[in-house]
């Protein structure tokens, strides 16, 4: 695997053989500028907790979960929450947060996030497009550049929780966000999956990615986990966990299963309409699951923070 363009091994690791950028990396041209790293550190100094939402597999509900997590945490008015969408090709967050058509404003202190609530700010490439159907057909380096800008040029202010929604995979965006956020501290990753083996096989890769880049794993969320018919109340497995689902995978890989969220057509509807599912369907079993999971994530972050403070 790519050791990272900023790593000491850039260009000289075994994995660099055959990469067209090997020469560049070996010459140190692609590494992070120390001045840049200092800039990022300064910008992100006032961020207390950072949570990455990852998968490996597409379409499992990363953005849906990121939006729910953001709304859930921002329910406490005293908490300042930021949601950063680094899915450059398929940014779902603007629509899910009811912010389609919003634009980013610039000021002396940088780009201003788009605020859903006073205490919930959002940033996404979606806000930079002239039309929502414009395709962003960019290779890795250009995507990395925008992600860096999101961290360096956005005036986030003081934030209690920075949630980063990612695209599927283990590539440029994922390497870059981990590299750039090393300027601050990442509490950990929440990994989202569905019960089927086709998803789990990609998620195991993502778990390995986290281990490789030393990113702590807060836990795994299993979405689309069963469906209860509103008419007859019978439960069906729409995506059968043929190999034991997330539960078995978490046991095998010694990671925490944060919770299972059942399929609820209201989730998709809320996302399409840009409404908070937790507010629109407070009595849904899915809402209860989400709330429990959010609570566990909060506890993990707060506990981790107080441990760190003890060490200092």
């Amino acid at each position: 695997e790519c050791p990272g363009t900023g790593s000491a091994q850039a260009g000289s690791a075994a994995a660099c053989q055959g990469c067209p950028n090997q020469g560049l990396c070996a010459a140190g041209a692609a590494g992070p500028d120390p001045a840049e790293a200092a800039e990022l550190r300064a910008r992100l100094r006032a961020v207390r907790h950072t949570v990455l939402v990852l998968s490996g597999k597409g379409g499992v509900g990363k953005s849906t979960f990121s939006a729910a997590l953001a709304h859930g945490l921002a329910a406490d008015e005293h908490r300042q929450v930021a949601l950063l969408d680094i899915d450059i090709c398929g940014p779902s967050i603007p629509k899910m947060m009811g912010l389609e058509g919003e634009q980013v404003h610039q000021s002396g202190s940088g780009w201003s996030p788009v605020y859903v609530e006073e205490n919930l700010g959002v940033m996404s490439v979606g806000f930079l497009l002239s039309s929502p159907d414009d395709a962003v057909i960019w290779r890795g380096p250009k995507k990395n550049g925008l992600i860096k800008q999101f961290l360096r040029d956005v005036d986030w202010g003081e934030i209690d929780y920075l949630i980063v929604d990612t695209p599927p995979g283990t590539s440029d965006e994922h390497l870059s966000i981990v590299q750039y956020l090393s300027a601050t501290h990442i509490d950990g990753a929440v990994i989202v999956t569905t019960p089927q083996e086709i998803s789990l096989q990609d998620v195991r890769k993502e778990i390995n990615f986290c281990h490789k880049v030393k990113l702590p794993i807060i836990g795994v969320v299993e979405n689309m986990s069963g469906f209860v018919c509103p008419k007859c109340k019978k439960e069906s497995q729409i995506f059968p966990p043929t190999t034991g689902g997330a539960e078995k995978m978490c046991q095998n890989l010694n990671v925490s299963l944060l919770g299972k969220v059942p399929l609820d057509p209201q989730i998709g509807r809320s996302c399409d309409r840009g409404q908070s599912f937790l507010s629109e369907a407070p009595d849904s079993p899915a809402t209860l699951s989400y709330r429990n999971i959010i609570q566990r994530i909060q506890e993990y972050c707060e506990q981790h923070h107080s441990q760190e403070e003890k060490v200092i």
Partner: protein
Amino acid sequence: LPERSTNLLGVRHIVLVLSGKGGVGKSTLSTELALALRHRGHRVGILDVDLCGPSIPRMLRVQDRAVHQCDSGWVPVFVGQDRDIALMSIGFLLERPDDAVVWRGPKKNALIKQFVTDVAWGDLDFLIVDTPPGTSDEHISTVEALRPYRLLGAILVTTPQ
């Protein structure tokens, strides 16, 4: 224009399966389309250019197979009931199935070019190309590498939402 290698000269039609969105069923459709075309008597191959999340090997129950080299390049893995659908995927090149392919764009592009020009497909009526979600390196490189050949077109997959 990239040079034409001889490996794709025997392929009559190339079909890209795209989406933009993840998890809508591109790999599922690519697999079923290949099987259905084979059932109708056509010679079929599948090229899986999803390097981070290759799903096709498992869908065809060949996740444990390996690829071999010949004079013209890589020999695809033959899958299906009668072992007559040709398949190439990064899944076959991983040492362990859970190994993450953590590559930046340039390295991904290099492998995709190889997958397009260095696999000995032989004579095929249809080559179905399954892609990852997005509009990035894999997609740009695949289309660029396939440009000299007969690209039939793209099928786009979505869900209703």
